[in-house]
């Protein structure tokens, strides 16, 4: 893999740091007028998800990480692995529990997810920004409530729990923003 000089640092560049692929979130040059220049970099470790700050002496080089994002449709889980498929080549990829992590509660069959591959192995799964899921459990709402006064919890088919307005009932399909876990609206069937 190519290495990158600090001059090439920018948000989104993938580097190997402490033996782990990382994504640059922010890069700032710190240059004392008469002194050594530094790069102060905020990075996210792509396997552990940890965010940390590193500094480099400007002009140094760092090894790049063979990391790429691909779009795959979610198929099913066999309990140990979550299987995804490329809709064009029909090639399948299996992600383990560590890679799927919190995305597990937003996985809907046939939804297209973003998988991050490192040396061709999935290390992270990002669900679509919006998913549609059916409510399996929630308290009966009060009649006449339309706007909601704080709402109530509802459990979805994947096990995710979101706050919904009081008028929403079991069996209804709702749209949820996966980035925040917020209820967006009811879906007309």
């Amino acid at each position, binding site marked *: 893999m190519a290495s990158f000089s*600090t001059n090439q640092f920018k948000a989104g560049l993938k580097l190997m740091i402490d033996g782990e692929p990382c994504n640059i979130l922010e890069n700032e040059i710190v240059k004392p007028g008469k002194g050594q220049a*530094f790069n102060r970099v905020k990075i996210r470790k792509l396997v552990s998800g940890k965010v940390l700050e590193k500094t480099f002496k400007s002009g140094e080089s760092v090894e790049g990480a063979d990391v790429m994002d691909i779009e795959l449709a979610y198929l099913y889980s066999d309990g140990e692995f979550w299987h995804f498929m490329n809709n064009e080549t029909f090639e399948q990829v299996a992600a383990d529990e560590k890679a799927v992590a919190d995305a597990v509660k937003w996985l809907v069959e046939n939804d297209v997810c973003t998988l991050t591959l490192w040396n061709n192995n999935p290390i992270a799964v990002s669900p679509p920004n919006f998913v549609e899921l059916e409510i399996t459990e929630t308290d009966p709402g009060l009649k006449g409530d339309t706007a909601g006064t704080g709402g109530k919890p509802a459990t979805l088919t994947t096990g995710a729990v979101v706050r919904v307005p009081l008028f929403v009932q079991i069996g209804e399909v709702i749209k949820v923003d996966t980035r925040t876990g917020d209820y967006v609206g009811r879906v007309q069937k």
Partner: protein
Amino acid sequence: MWQPTASIETLKNRALFIASIRQFFTARGVWEVETPILSNNTITDLHLDAFETQFDFDTNGQAKSVFLQTSPEFAMKRLLAAGSGAIFQINKAFRHEAAGRFHNPEFTMLEWYRPGFDDQQLMAELDELMQLTVDAKPALYLSYQQAFINYLSFDPLTTNLEQLKLIIAEHSNDEWLQQESNPDTLLQWLFSMKIEPVLGYKEQAYEEKDKQWTPCFIYNFPASQASLAKINQQDKRVAHRFELYYQGVELANGFYELQDKAEQQKRFENDNQLRAQAGLTQKPVDENLLSALESGLPDCAGVAVGIDRLFMLKYNLTHINQAIAFDVNRA
């Protein structure tokens, strides 16, 4: 990409801002000079690099290297040695280094010299300029030594390389810091990362809007970072060099100017040795400056101020490209 990176309104404000600086000096009898942007000579600094180009029409028939100036310091000192008296200049300076939030390779610099002033008097004048042109509060003054004691609880003048590495390990586990052999680089790292971002910041306020920044002078830099300043005769561990910091940004660097030709020559040679050790090309020494020092530079203090940065702070701009018409990518 043809459009300017700054808004027209901002650029009009910038014109007024620069006019107010000229007015400040004119009112004090400091006259404006112009010195070459393209020069036969350049600086020897380890950490500064000039853009170099070639002049094909020299009268001796040989192509020769010429440099875009990194600051007008040497040329202005030659004017002082020739009897100019107090002078200022607002012009373009160039540094061959990466662009960033506070860096554009081409930038606007204000530089002025005051015969008869020492570093303390010049800091006081810059303090007034800050109050009059960017509505800053009266500045704080802190020695380099005291800043480290206040913010990091150690004395930078009595701490050796091994002790510095132990201290720095409390702040960062970056491996290269532990392998560094130049103590000044570690001091610069600690200063830039741990002191500069909070220097002159008052955070004991109930509301966010009451948290306030005060410009802060750092003076008496270590003699090893003297650059072109006189060594302090009361404490030879430090030099008459100062910097100004405001809102976490380095704005100015000034000296009670070195007048001794032999000492200047020694510092140039020392710089070149450091360049050689770092695997960099050595730079020719500016003989014109040395001759001017030999002829006699008046006792004086001088300072350079980054105008784009100062303007950014005045108008709360977050990137230098919002303060200049076209940044390096659109130039």
